């Protein structure tokens, strides 16, 4: 009986742990995302995701990645212009202080959506999970747009 109870508790605990690891902690009103859109480039070329992140909470927000079922991989990137040369590189994380806004905008920080997993067209919507430090996440719907509209 004791053994059974222990086993049951352990199974329950393991199940809870798996659920937490899978789901993480969803963000509520503390994190707000607006104007989320992803440019759909022709063929298999990667798209860029733009949005504004508003940290309405009391603590610094640390964005560490993103994921979407519609793409093989999603990376955080930043573009910059140095002496007339366009550069781009991946970034590990983006910090947004409490009460601050941070724009993922053309020719600056952006999400790079690589390897389309499903057929997309302009006007579609794509679900993206923004991943934050401490295993937190936020589900965001991105509008699929033409690059010519940017």
């Amino acid at each position, binding site marked *: 009986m004791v053994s059974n109870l222990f086993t049951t508790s352990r199974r329950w605990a393991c199940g809870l742990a798996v659920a937490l690891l899978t789901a993480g902690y969803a963000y509520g009103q503390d994190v707000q995302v607006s104007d989320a859109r992803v*440019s759909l*480039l*022709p*063929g298999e*070329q*990667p*798209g*860029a995701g733009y949005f504004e992140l508003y940290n309405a909470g009391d603590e610094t927000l640390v964005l560490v990645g993103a994921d979407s079922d519609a793409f093989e*991989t999603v990376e955080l*990137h930043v*573009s910059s*212009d140095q002496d*007339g*040369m*366009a*550069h*781009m*590189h991946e970034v590990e994380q983006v910090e947004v202080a409490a009460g601050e806004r941070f724009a993922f905008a*053309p*020719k600056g920080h*952006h999400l*790079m*959506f*690589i390897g389309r997993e499903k057929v997309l067209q302009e006007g579609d919507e794509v679900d993206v999970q923004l991943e934050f430090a401490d295993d937190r996440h936020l589900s965001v719907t991105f509008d699929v747009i*033409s*690059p*010519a*509209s*940017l």
Partner: protein
Amino acid sequence: MNKGLLVTLALLGLAGCADTSWRTAETHEIMPPLDFSLVDENGQAVDAEDYAGKVTLVYFGYTFCPDVCPITLARLAGTLNRLDDDVRDDIQVLFITVDPERDTPDVVKRYTGAFGDAFIGITGERAEIDALTNRMRVTYEYETPNERGDYIVNHTSAVFAFDREGEAQFLIRDSHPINDAVADINRLVTES
């Protein structure tokens, strides 16, 4: 203020009015005429002479570029849309890839097709692209591929404008106001 100074200022003002320099950045004195032997988006061998007769805007980029290249081309399309139809008909935009291994004619054709009929994809032999970029003092560099084999190419970000004879005239940087780009392109088409 004395009269002499006023006259001087007035003359300077007149000189300013007669100034024919471009509002963007002048390249006529520092850049050679457009000259290349490459391959167009239909797989045809092309020379710079094939594009004579129209004003040509040239942008160097690559299609595995989700942000800077499409944004530059989209803004250029927006710039051209502010011109009169008959002016716009006399302009072509060459998107010349600096990544010909990935950017085949088909790939550059699909990519430029997203921005309008005036946009033409150009690819070719790496040596021929290098000959062109070296002549124009345009630089680009490949970064180390990641585990998927994807790589980033850093490249000159300006748009170069050539007149109908292929003579270099000016270049447009991100920092130039769109009104200046519109005015210079319009003038280049209507005065040549």
